[in-house]
């Protein structure tokens, strides 16, 4: 297991300051606002999750971070230098959302190309290619043309080009989208490994469990506006009181365990199983008496007690509820 500890004492590695962006669209080329006054900081050596539904403005902001686009207003700074400056981009690695690359290139030809664009010398590129291919588990694809790559392989070779020049900041746009569960797990582990090597990872996703699983910091964007930003623990605490699921064997009904109204006893919901019941209890103050009563019952035995962490989905829902 890898551990990535954010160093909050340091200056942020990436600073997004009051960034707004709009695009020209339609016959009259009217500007459509995509980002509105977006601001947040990314601490060095952290994994920063950028969460939002499709069309929220995640990819647009990533294009601003990687210097592909210029903001209409505001600034994006990497260690104090605008990402429009090639000197800042020298320390940034980028994986696009849909890794469409030049299909005629082989794995190593592809890395040679992007190695040259990243400022590496030929000798450095030749030295780094086997290392990064090994690092992303693609050593055998060195001579294979990209047109023969699967989606997962393209993601990996895309990550390989992003880390080829040892960037401090890795920006990954939806790195797990379109992958099967095994592929998602592998990419997740790869991200954790890259972060453990000392890199800062900024990645976007609209899949909340992906962000929950590996991120230290989270920003939530919706309709071009940052809804929330901060450490992941803070987000999970906001999801309401801690809940625990208890599964009991030898109990057929809730009435055997609870006197009176279940909700008054902290029972959020319950359902019968083949041999017992599964009960979700809200709050530690209700859990202890419930367990004591269950243990006192002669035929009952506890199958499991699982804490249920609130998800960022709950956060999204609560945010929308508050708006309404």
């Amino acid at each position, binding site marked *: 297991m890898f551990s990535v500890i954010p160093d909050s004492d340091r200056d942020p590695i990436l600073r997004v300051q009051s960034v707004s962006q709009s695009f020209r669209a339609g016959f009259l080329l009217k500007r459509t606002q995509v980002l509105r006054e977006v601001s947040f900081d990314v601490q060095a050596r952290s994994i920063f999750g950028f969460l939002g539904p499709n069309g929220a403005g995640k990819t647009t902001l990533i*294009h601003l971070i990687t210097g592909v686009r210029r903001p209409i207003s505001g600034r994006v700074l990497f260690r104090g230098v605008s990402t429009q400056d090639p000197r800042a981009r*020298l320390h940034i690695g*980028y994986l*696009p959302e849909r890794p469409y690359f030049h299909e005629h*290139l082989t794995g190593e030809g592809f890395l*040679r190309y*992007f190695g040259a*664009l*990243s400022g590496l010398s030929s000798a450095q590129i030749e*030295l780094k290619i086997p290392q990064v291919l090994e690092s992303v588990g693609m050593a055998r694809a060195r001579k294979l043309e990209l047109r023969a790559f699967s989606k997962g392989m393209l993601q990996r070779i895309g990550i390989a080009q992003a880390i080829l020049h040892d960037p401090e900041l890795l920006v990954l746009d939806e790195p797990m989208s379109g992958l099967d569960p095994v592929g998602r797990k592998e990419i997740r582990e790869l991200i954790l490994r890259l972060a453990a090597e000392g890199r800062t990872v900024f990645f976007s996703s609209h899949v909340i469990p992906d962000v929950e699983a590996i991120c230290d910091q989270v920003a939530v964007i919706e309709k071009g506006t940052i809804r929330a930003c901060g450490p992941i623990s803070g987000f999970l605490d906001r999801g309401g009181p801690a809940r625990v699921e208890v599964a009991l064997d030898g109990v057929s009904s809730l009435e055997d365990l609870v006197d009176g109204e279940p909700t008054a006893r902290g029972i959020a919901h319950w359902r019968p199983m083949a041999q017992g019941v599964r009960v979700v209890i809200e709050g530690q103050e209700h859990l202890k008496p419930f367990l004591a009563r269950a243990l006192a019952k002669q035929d009952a035995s506890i199958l499991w007690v699982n804490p249920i962490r609130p998800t960022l989905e709950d956060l999204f829902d609560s945010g929308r509820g508050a708006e309404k």
Partner: protein
Amino acid sequence: MKASPAVPGGYQVSMAVARVTFFEILRERVLYNIVVVSALVLIASVLAAQISNAMTGRVLSDLGWGALLLSCFAVALSQGASCIAREVERRTILVALAKPIHRQQWLLGKYLGVVAVVTLNALLLSLVTLGVSFQMLGEDFWFVPLGTRVGACFLLLVQSWLIAGLAIFFSSFSTATLSAVLSVGIYFVGSSASQIRWLGLQSDGLAVRWFFELVSWLVPNFEFFQVSRQLTYGLPLELGMIAGRSIYGFIWCALLVLLGGMLLQKREL
């Protein structure tokens, strides 16, 4: 050894982009379609020359030269107009521009890649055309001096580079189709530069005169590269003239790539 990159120089970037572009275009089916059509025109010129008892050399020269011209024009136009659009459509441009490079360097690399393909195509077809002419004409081949033939081929090559430059310039801010249409338009205007100037001189109005004069200066003068008369009649081409017109072409190419780079810098991708 830890990699310690530095912001890459223009040469390194442009050469890397040019290499990838060159091999990418070599995989394009449209390139081979153009080459096949040109080869067919060349074969037709051989057949036509055989049918015509008199003026075999003239028929072969005109049609063979036409095939060469058509091929170089089509390759330069199609690849110049589509190479940036292809990158934008496939989104491959985004990863490249996220690297520590300037867009002008990237555009120069694309242009050099197209130029390499155009040059390869022109060289191969020129050699084939010269070879066929030599085989068919025997001693009559020398009616047109070798210097004229080589000089004409070189000027044709410079013209093709210029057409590629025009197409790349337009594609830095517009679609592939529009770039091709605009480039063809400029080519026809530039091929009639002297007529445009003459047209202006026929007018009494000073403003009209100035307008036509301005138009003739604002577009590259493609008449400089058209030497089919010398080829047909076996007239010599002076080295100084070839050098001067080539320099004129190179200046236009540099200007177009520079302006294209500046426009690409401002373009919203």
